[in-house]
Protein backbone atom coordinates (compact mmCIF):
# COMPACT_ATOMS: atom_id res chain seq x y z
CA UNK A 1 0.00 0.00 0.00
CA UNK A 2 1.06 3.61 -0.34
CA UNK A 3 1.97 5.29 2.93
CA UNK A 4 0.91 8.95 2.65
CA UNK A 5 1.64 9.68 6.30
CA UNK A 6 4.73 11.78 5.58
CA UNK A 7 5.40 14.48 2.99
CA UNK A 8 6.32 12.11 0.23
CA UNK A 9 4.53 8.92 -0.74
CA UNK A 10 6.23 5.64 0.02
CA UNK A 11 5.23 2.16 -1.04
CA UNK A 12 5.31 -0.54 1.64
CA UNK A 13 4.37 -4.18 1.12
CA UNK A 14 4.72 -7.22 3.35
CA UNK A 15 4.26 -10.82 2.29
CA UNK A 16 4.78 -14.12 4.10
CA UNK A 17 6.21 -17.05 2.16
CA UNK A 18 6.67 -20.70 3.05
CA UNK A 19 10.37 -20.96 2.26
CA UNK A 20 13.79 -20.28 3.80
CA UNK A 21 15.64 -16.94 3.81
CA UNK A 22 18.34 -18.53 1.60
CA UNK A 23 15.84 -19.70 -1.04
CA UNK A 24 14.09 -16.33 -1.03
CA UNK A 25 17.42 -14.52 -1.43
CA UNK A 26 18.30 -16.80 -4.35
CA UNK A 27 14.92 -16.09 -5.99
CA UNK A 28 15.46 -12.33 -5.62
CA UNK A 29 18.96 -12.40 -7.12
CA UNK A 30 19.05 -15.19 -9.72
CA UNK A 31 18.29 -13.84 -13.24
CA UNK A 32 16.72 -17.10 -14.44
CA UNK A 33 14.39 -17.28 -11.43
CA UNK A 34 13.49 -13.59 -11.65
CA UNK A 35 12.29 -14.14 -15.22
CA UNK A 36 9.83 -16.78 -14.00
CA UNK A 37 7.90 -14.48 -11.65
CA UNK A 38 8.62 -11.00 -13.09
CA UNK A 39 6.56 -11.45 -16.27
CA UNK A 40 9.57 -12.29 -18.44
CA UNK A 41 11.63 -9.34 -17.22
CA UNK A 42 14.99 -10.05 -15.71
CA UNK A 43 17.77 -8.34 -13.81
CA UNK A 44 21.33 -8.17 -15.08
CA UNK A 45 23.51 -7.92 -12.02
CA UNK A 46 25.84 -9.84 -9.72
CA UNK A 47 24.10 -8.30 -6.66
CA UNK A 48 27.29 -7.08 -5.01
CA UNK A 49 27.40 -3.62 -3.35
CA UNK A 50 28.39 -1.00 -5.93
CA UNK A 51 27.51 -3.16 -8.94
CA UNK A 52 25.40 -1.81 -11.77
CA UNK A 53 21.86 -3.20 -11.89
CA UNK A 54 19.30 -3.15 -14.67
CA UNK A 55 15.90 -4.64 -15.36
CA UNK A 56 15.24 -5.66 -18.97
CA UNK A 57 12.14 -6.61 -20.92
CA UNK A 58 11.95 -9.99 -22.65
CA UNK A 59 12.85 -8.34 -25.98
CA UNK A 60 16.03 -6.83 -24.52
CA UNK A 61 14.82 -3.25 -24.04
CA UNK A 62 15.88 -1.63 -20.78
CA UNK A 63 13.12 -0.90 -18.27
CA UNK A 64 15.09 0.40 -15.30
CA UNK A 65 18.73 1.00 -14.39
CA UNK A 66 20.60 1.64 -11.16
CA UNK A 67 23.05 0.14 -8.71
CA UNK A 68 23.22 -2.11 -5.68
CA UNK A 69 23.65 -0.01 -2.54
CA UNK A 70 23.61 -2.83 0.01
CA UNK A 71 23.62 -6.61 -0.24
CA UNK A 72 23.66 -8.65 2.97
CA UNK A 73 22.56 -12.17 2.03
CA UNK A 74 20.09 -13.52 3.03
CA UNK A 75 18.80 -10.53 4.99
CA UNK A 76 18.85 -7.19 3.20
CA UNK A 77 19.11 -5.84 -0.33
CA UNK A 78 18.97 -2.15 -1.25
CA UNK A 79 18.75 -1.10 -4.91
CA UNK A 80 18.92 2.47 -6.21
CA UNK A 81 16.91 2.60 -9.40
CA UNK A 82 15.40 4.84 -12.03
CA UNK A 83 12.79 4.16 -14.69
CA UNK A 84 14.22 4.41 -18.23
CA UNK A 85 11.27 3.84 -20.56
CA UNK A 86 8.55 6.28 -19.45
CA UNK A 87 9.71 9.92 -19.59
CA UNK A 88 7.30 11.08 -16.87
CA UNK A 89 8.63 8.42 -14.48
CA UNK A 90 12.28 8.93 -15.46
CA UNK A 91 11.83 12.63 -14.71
CA UNK A 92 11.15 11.80 -11.04
CA UNK A 93 14.73 10.54 -10.73
CA UNK A 94 16.21 7.76 -8.64
CA UNK A 95 14.27 5.69 -6.16
CA UNK A 96 15.47 3.50 -3.35
CA UNK A 97 14.06 0.00 -2.94
CA UNK A 98 14.82 -1.86 0.27
CA UNK A 99 14.04 -5.56 0.61
CA UNK A 100 14.23 -7.13 4.05
CA UNK A 101 14.00 -10.83 4.82
CA UNK A 102 13.16 -12.06 8.32
CA UNK A 103 12.08 -15.32 9.85
CA UNK A 104 8.45 -14.86 10.85
CA UNK A 105 7.54 -16.20 14.26
CA UNK A 106 9.70 -19.22 13.78
CA UNK A 107 8.60 -22.13 15.91
CA UNK A 108 10.88 -25.09 15.13
CA UNK A 109 8.86 -27.32 17.45
CA UNK A 110 5.83 -26.96 15.22
CA UNK A 111 7.82 -27.37 12.02
CA UNK A 112 6.44 -24.00 10.99
CA UNK A 113 8.47 -22.06 8.53
CA UNK A 114 7.44 -18.79 7.04
CA UNK A 115 9.65 -15.96 5.90
CA UNK A 116 8.55 -12.34 6.05
CA UNK A 117 9.56 -10.20 3.08
CA UNK A 118 9.15 -6.43 3.43
CA UNK A 119 9.56 -4.04 0.49
CA UNK A 120 9.99 -0.29 1.00
CA UNK A 121 10.16 1.82 -2.13
CA UNK A 122 10.50 5.61 -2.24
CA UNK A 123 11.92 8.36 -4.42
CA UNK A 124 15.22 9.83 -3.22
CA UNK A 125 14.29 13.45 -3.94
CA UNK A 126 11.05 15.37 -3.53
CA UNK A 127 7.76 14.18 -4.99
CA UNK A 128 7.78 10.92 -6.87
CA UNK A 129 4.01 10.46 -6.92
CA UNK A 130 3.80 8.97 -10.42
CA UNK A 131 6.70 6.58 -9.91
CA UNK A 132 5.33 5.34 -6.57
CA UNK A 133 1.85 4.95 -8.07
CA UNK A 134 3.36 2.84 -10.87
CA UNK A 135 5.38 0.53 -8.61
CA UNK A 136 2.46 0.15 -6.19
CA UNK A 137 0.51 -1.50 -9.03
CA UNK A 138 3.42 -3.71 -10.04
CA UNK A 139 4.84 -4.96 -6.74
CA UNK A 140 1.76 -6.92 -5.57
CA UNK A 141 1.72 -8.80 -8.91
CA UNK A 142 5.44 -9.56 -8.85
CA UNK A 143 5.51 -10.56 -5.18
CA UNK A 144 2.33 -12.66 -5.43
CA UNK A 145 3.98 -14.52 -8.32
CA UNK A 146 7.23 -14.93 -6.38
CA UNK A 147 5.31 -16.41 -3.43
CA UNK A 148 3.46 -18.84 -5.71
CA UNK A 149 6.69 -19.87 -7.44
CA UNK A 150 8.44 -20.65 -4.15
CA UNK A 151 5.46 -22.46 -2.63
CA UNK A 152 4.09 -24.35 -5.63
CA UNK A 153 6.85 -24.36 -8.26
CA UNK A 154 4.67 -22.29 -10.60
CA UNK A 155 4.03 -18.58 -10.94
CA UNK A 156 0.38 -17.63 -10.29
CA UNK A 157 -0.10 -15.98 -13.67
CA UNK A 158 1.76 -14.75 -16.72
CA UNK A 159 0.54 -11.19 -17.26
Amino acid at each position, binding site marked *: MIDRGSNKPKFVYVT*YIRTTPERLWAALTDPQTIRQYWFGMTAECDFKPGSAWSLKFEDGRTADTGEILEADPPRRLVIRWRNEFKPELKAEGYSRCTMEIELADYYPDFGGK*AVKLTIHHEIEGEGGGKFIEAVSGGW*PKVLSNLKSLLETGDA*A*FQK
Partner: protein
Amino acid sequence: MVDSTKFKPKTVYVIYIAATPEKVWQALTDPAFSKQYFFGFAVDMEPTTGGRFRLLWPDGRLHVSGEVVEWTPPRRLSVTWLVEGMKDFGELPQCLVSYDIVASGDAVRLTMTESHSWDVPRDILRGGEMGWPKILSGLKSLLETRKPLVTGNEGPPPEFMEAVKRAVAEKPWLRS
Protein backbone atom coordinates in the same frame (compact mmCIF):
# COMPACT_ATOMS: atom_id res chain seq x y z
CA MET B 1 -27.92 -0.01 7.95
CA VAL B 2 -24.60 1.79 8.27
CA ASP B 3 -23.79 4.64 5.85
CA SER B 4 -20.63 3.34 4.18
CA THR B 5 -19.90 6.73 2.52
CA LYS B 6 -18.86 8.04 5.96
CA PHE B 7 -15.86 5.66 5.98
CA LYS B 8 -12.51 6.63 4.42
CA PRO B 9 -10.05 3.96 3.18
CA LYS B 10 -6.96 3.84 5.42
CA THR B 11 -5.30 0.48 4.75
CA VAL B 12 -5.33 -1.29 1.39
CA TYR B 13 -3.72 -4.65 0.64
CA VAL B 14 -3.67 -6.25 -2.82
CA ILE B 15 -2.76 -9.88 -3.48
CA TYR B 16 -3.04 -12.07 -6.59
CA ILE B 17 -4.17 -15.67 -6.15
CA ALA B 18 -4.15 -18.59 -8.60
CA ALA B 19 -7.80 -19.51 -8.03
CA THR B 20 -11.28 -18.70 -9.31
CA PRO B 21 -13.31 -15.78 -7.91
CA GLU B 22 -15.76 -18.36 -6.50
CA LYS B 23 -13.01 -20.16 -4.61
CA VAL B 24 -11.71 -16.89 -3.12
CA TRP B 25 -15.27 -15.96 -2.14
CA GLN B 26 -15.67 -19.31 -0.41
CA ALA B 27 -12.37 -18.85 1.45
CA LEU B 28 -13.61 -15.47 2.75
CA THR B 29 -17.04 -16.68 3.85
CA ASP B 30 -16.64 -20.32 4.95
CA PRO B 31 -15.47 -20.99 8.55
CA ALA B 32 -13.77 -24.24 7.49
CA PHE B 33 -11.39 -22.04 5.47
CA SER B 34 -11.08 -19.00 7.73
CA LYS B 35 -10.02 -21.15 10.71
CA GLN B 36 -6.97 -22.18 8.68
CA TYR B 37 -5.69 -18.72 7.76
CA PHE B 38 -7.35 -16.15 10.09
CA PHE B 39 -5.52 -16.86 13.37
CA GLY B 40 -7.98 -19.70 14.01
CA PHE B 41 -11.11 -17.50 13.88
CA ALA B 42 -14.29 -18.89 12.36
CA VAL B 43 -16.28 -16.47 10.19
CA ASP B 44 -19.98 -16.68 10.91
CA MET B 45 -22.20 -14.64 8.61
CA GLU B 46 -25.69 -14.55 7.25
CA PRO B 47 -25.31 -14.69 3.45
CA THR B 48 -27.24 -11.55 2.65
CA THR B 49 -26.89 -7.77 2.73
CA GLY B 50 -28.02 -6.64 6.20
CA GLY B 51 -27.16 -10.01 7.71
CA ARG B 52 -25.09 -10.65 10.81
CA PHE B 53 -21.30 -10.95 10.65
CA ARG B 54 -19.08 -12.39 13.39
CA LEU B 55 -15.62 -13.79 13.98
CA LEU B 56 -15.47 -16.45 16.68
CA TRP B 57 -12.60 -17.89 18.69
CA PRO B 58 -12.10 -21.66 18.35
CA ASP B 59 -14.02 -22.12 21.63
CA GLY B 60 -16.98 -20.14 20.29
CA ARG B 61 -16.38 -16.87 22.13
CA LEU B 62 -17.12 -13.66 20.22
CA HIS B 63 -14.12 -11.76 18.80
CA VAL B 64 -15.56 -9.44 16.14
CA SER B 65 -19.17 -8.49 15.50
CA GLY B 66 -20.69 -6.54 12.64
CA GLU B 67 -23.15 -6.43 9.81
CA VAL B 68 -22.95 -7.50 6.17
CA VAL B 69 -23.12 -4.18 4.27
CA GLU B 70 -22.67 -5.70 0.82
CA TRP B 71 -23.04 -9.32 -0.24
CA THR B 72 -22.39 -9.63 -3.97
CA PRO B 73 -20.86 -13.06 -4.65
CA PRO B 74 -18.29 -13.59 -6.03
CA ARG B 75 -17.22 -9.96 -6.44
CA ARG B 76 -17.66 -7.81 -3.37
CA LEU B 77 -18.08 -8.45 0.33
CA SER B 78 -18.24 -5.59 2.79
CA VAL B 79 -18.80 -5.88 6.54
CA THR B 80 -18.73 -3.57 9.53
CA TRP B 81 -16.18 -4.64 12.10
CA LEU B 82 -16.09 -4.11 15.86
CA VAL B 83 -13.58 -6.01 17.99
CA GLU B 84 -15.55 -6.94 21.10
CA GLY B 85 -13.41 -9.76 22.43
CA MET B 86 -10.57 -7.53 23.76
CA LYS B 87 -10.58 -5.01 26.59
CA ASP B 88 -11.42 -1.40 25.51
CA PHE B 89 -11.75 -2.29 21.80
CA GLY B 90 -15.54 -2.58 21.93
CA GLU B 91 -15.78 1.13 22.74
CA LEU B 92 -14.03 2.24 19.54
CA PRO B 93 -16.17 3.19 16.53
CA GLN B 94 -16.66 0.22 14.22
CA CYS B 95 -14.66 0.12 11.00
CA LEU B 96 -15.55 -1.18 7.57
CA VAL B 97 -13.72 -4.07 5.90
CA SER B 98 -14.31 -4.65 2.19
CA TYR B 99 -13.02 -7.35 -0.14
CA ASP B 100 -13.06 -6.85 -3.91
CA ILE B 101 -12.45 -9.84 -6.16
CA VAL B 102 -11.55 -9.29 -9.83
CA ALA B 103 -10.45 -11.92 -12.36
CA SER B 104 -7.01 -10.97 -13.72
CA GLY B 105 -5.68 -13.26 -16.43
CA ASP B 106 -5.23 -16.76 -14.97
CA ALA B 107 -5.50 -15.39 -11.45
CA VAL B 108 -7.70 -13.30 -9.17
CA ARG B 109 -6.86 -9.93 -7.70
CA LEU B 110 -8.12 -9.67 -4.13
CA THR B 111 -8.15 -6.18 -2.61
CA MET B 112 -8.81 -5.71 1.10
CA THR B 113 -9.74 -2.18 2.17
CA GLU B 114 -10.01 -1.18 5.84
CA SER B 115 -11.94 2.08 6.19
CA HIS B 116 -12.64 4.28 9.20
CA SER B 117 -15.20 6.95 10.01
CA TRP B 118 -12.86 9.02 12.23
CA ASP B 119 -9.30 10.31 12.25
CA VAL B 120 -7.90 7.06 13.59
CA PRO B 121 -4.33 7.32 15.01
CA ARG B 122 -1.46 5.65 13.14
CA ASP B 123 -0.70 3.39 16.09
CA ILE B 124 -4.18 1.89 15.87
CA LEU B 125 -3.87 1.40 12.10
CA ARG B 126 -0.65 -0.55 12.80
CA GLY B 127 -2.79 -3.43 14.10
CA GLY B 128 -4.36 -3.99 10.68
CA GLU B 129 -1.13 -3.23 8.84
CA MET B 130 0.55 -6.05 10.76
CA GLY B 131 -2.33 -8.48 10.59
CA TRP B 132 -3.66 -8.27 7.02
CA PRO B 133 -0.44 -9.37 5.24
CA LYS B 134 -0.32 -12.48 7.45
CA ILE B 135 -4.00 -13.28 6.99
CA LEU B 136 -4.06 -12.75 3.23
CA SER B 137 -0.68 -14.45 2.62
CA GLY B 138 -2.16 -17.40 4.50
CA LEU B 139 -5.37 -17.34 2.43
CA LYS B 140 -3.31 -17.43 -0.79
CA SER B 141 -1.12 -20.31 0.45
CA LEU B 142 -4.18 -22.28 1.55
CA LEU B 143 -5.92 -21.93 -1.82
CA GLU B 144 -2.80 -22.59 -3.90
CA THR B 145 -1.17 -25.37 -1.87
CA ARG B 146 -4.10 -26.67 0.27
CA LYS B 147 -1.81 -26.26 3.27
CA PRO B 148 -2.06 -23.47 5.85
CA LEU B 149 0.88 -21.10 6.22
CA VAL B 150 2.32 -20.99 9.74
CA THR B 151 3.17 -17.39 10.56
CA GLY B 152 2.19 -17.45 14.22
CA ASN B 153 0.64 -14.49 15.94
CA GLU B 154 2.75 -12.48 18.34
CA GLY B 155 -0.21 -10.22 19.08
CA PRO B 156 -0.42 -6.46 18.78
CA PRO B 157 2.51 -4.26 19.90
CA PRO B 158 2.29 -2.32 23.23
CA GLU B 159 1.96 1.08 21.47
CA PHE B 160 -1.13 -0.27 19.71
CA MET B 161 -2.78 -1.26 22.99
CA GLU B 162 -1.82 2.12 24.51
CA ALA B 163 -3.30 4.00 21.54
CA VAL B 164 -6.59 2.12 21.88
CA LYS B 165 -6.76 2.86 25.61
CA ARG B 166 -6.05 6.56 24.97
CA ALA B 167 -8.64 6.82 22.19
CA VAL B 168 -11.31 5.17 24.33
CA ALA B 169 -10.54 7.62 27.18
CA GLU B 170 -10.59 10.74 24.94
CA LYS B 171 -13.21 9.62 22.37
CA PRO B 172 -12.00 12.00 19.59
CA TRP B 173 -14.73 10.77 17.22
CA LEU B 174 -17.36 12.56 19.28
CA ARG B 175 -15.77 15.97 18.57
CA SER B 176 -16.58 16.24 14.86
